[in-house]
């Protein structure tokens, strides 16, 4: 084991008050490309995050999450151990190959008019009040109804989907074990939902997203009913909270950068850039977890097999070594961010998320001016997946 040439900083990342956008983190990043943490190693700089995110020496690190929380069985456990997020090697690649075509950017593009109509409908409902609770009134219904559009279920059923997704999401929190019965009950309900959809599309296949999954076929290989069901549950689990939180964080970033909001209002064609910039400087997924599959040495660091490695997204996306002007700039040319993870586990649904958020943000900017906090905002901790729980804002309606 080589001796580190600089003193290695330590970060207590499970402390609820730990802040990603803090002087402590910036100083640590300045001092060293990685920090030691109470969970293993945190990688702080862009080049190193980029390299290690895709390194074959690291596997996805969440497979043992239930076991780490004392959960060794049940519906969530069974689903988790068979879902694409934690599968590796050919087991992972086979399912990914069968799922990928349904997520093709060419097919997602057809949904854009639906996304626009939905955004406008939600804005219509609050625009004359001059204020809204942005999560309740926009981010959550938008994120969830996009899922219902994708799944081809009535949009009116979105509160059920939102409730089930949030309940299953408790599995990622520190109170997972206490919430286990609730989580398993929600998985059972989602299974029923997904099985109903699959049966319906098998009997009446169309051109829609779920039909494409049902009909997916590669060299005669198909997804089993169980694999289809697991994939639909993953879509709901992975697609709702993340998009809701990211939209809330986008609003926060634009409130800090009002001139960028005005630019977006004038230039709706910058919607795609707005999404990339927000995810670079203010991502909901604040770290991506990996685990060393073998002993290896990277730069000056010996990493022992089994070590947890957290790749910090916001820290890498604002690293002055890679971004000399790290501030939000919709007209800037910036290297890609890692808010969707990367490598073989790169987010499967990113084309959907990019498409729906890049429609929502310019529509919001073109209709409301001067968004600002009005008090009472509540936030998730910074560690893991972050974002606002409540975000009351005031604004001026544009004429």
């Amino acid at each position, binding site marked *: 084991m080589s001796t580190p040439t600089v003193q290695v900083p330590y970060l207590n990342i499970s402390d609820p008050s730990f802040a990603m956008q803090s002087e402590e983190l910036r100083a640590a990043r300045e001092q060293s490309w990685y920090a030691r943490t109470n969970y293993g190693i945190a990688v702080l700089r862009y080049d190193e995050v980029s390299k290690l995110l895709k390194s074959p020496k690291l596997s996805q690190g969440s497979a043992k999450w239930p076991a780490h929380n004392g959960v060794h069985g049940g519906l969530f456990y069974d689903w988790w151990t068979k879902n694409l997020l934690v599968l590796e090697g050919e087991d992972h*690649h086979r399912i990914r190959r069968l799922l990928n075509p349904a*997520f*093709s950017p060419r097919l997602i593009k057809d949904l854009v008019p639906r996304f626009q109509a939905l955004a406008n409908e939600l804005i219509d409902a609050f625009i004359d009040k001059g204020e809204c609770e942005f999560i309740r009134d926009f981010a959550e219904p938008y994120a969830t109804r996009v899922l219902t559009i994708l799944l081809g279920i009535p949009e009116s059923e979105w509160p059920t989907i939102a409730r089930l997704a949030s309940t299953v999401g408790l599995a990622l929190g520190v109170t997972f074990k206490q919430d286990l019965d609730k989580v398993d009950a929600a998985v059972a309900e989602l299974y029923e939902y997904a099985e109903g959809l699959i049966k319906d599309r098998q009997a009446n296949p169309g051109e829609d997203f779920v039909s494409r999954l049902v009909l997916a076929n590669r060299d005669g290989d198909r997804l089993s009913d169980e694999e289809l069901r697991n994939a639909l549950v993953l879509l709901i689990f992975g697609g709702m909270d993340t998009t809701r939180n990211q939209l809330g964080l986008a609003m926060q970033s634009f409130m800090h950068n009002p001139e960028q909001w005005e630019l977006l209002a004038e230039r709706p064609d910058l919607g795609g850039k707005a999404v990339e910039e927000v995810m670079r400087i203010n991502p909901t997924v604040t770290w991506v977890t990996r685990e060393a599959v073998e002993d290896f040495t990277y730069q000056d660091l010996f990493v022992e097999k089994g070590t947890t490695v957290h790749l910090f997204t916001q820290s890498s996306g604002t690293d002055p070594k890679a971004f000399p002007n790290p501030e939000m700039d919709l007209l800037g040319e910036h290297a890609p961010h890692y808010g969707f993870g990367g490598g*073989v586990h790169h987010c499967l649904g990113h084309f959907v998320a990019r498409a729906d958020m890049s429609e929502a943000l310019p529509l919001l900017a073109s209709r409301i001016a001067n968004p600002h906090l009005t008090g009472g905002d509540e936030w998730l901790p910074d560690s893991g997946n972050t974002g606002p729980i409540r975000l009351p804002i005031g604004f001026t309606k544009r004429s």
Partner: protein
Amino acid sequence: MKTIDVDRTLCDNHGQCAIAAPDVFRMNADGELEYEATFDDALLDVVEEAIDVCPVQAIFLKD
């Protein structure tokens, strides 16, 4: 005959193409992309899947 062109200024070595079309694209031991510019016509469908799935849309077909 169509040939593959990867824009190396865009390619970020995620390796999704190597999952979609392993007969054409592969990641070496350093985690970097290697590929054949020419491919058997029978592989056109999977090459198109690889093009679609690339997170940074760095793969192109040339005539």
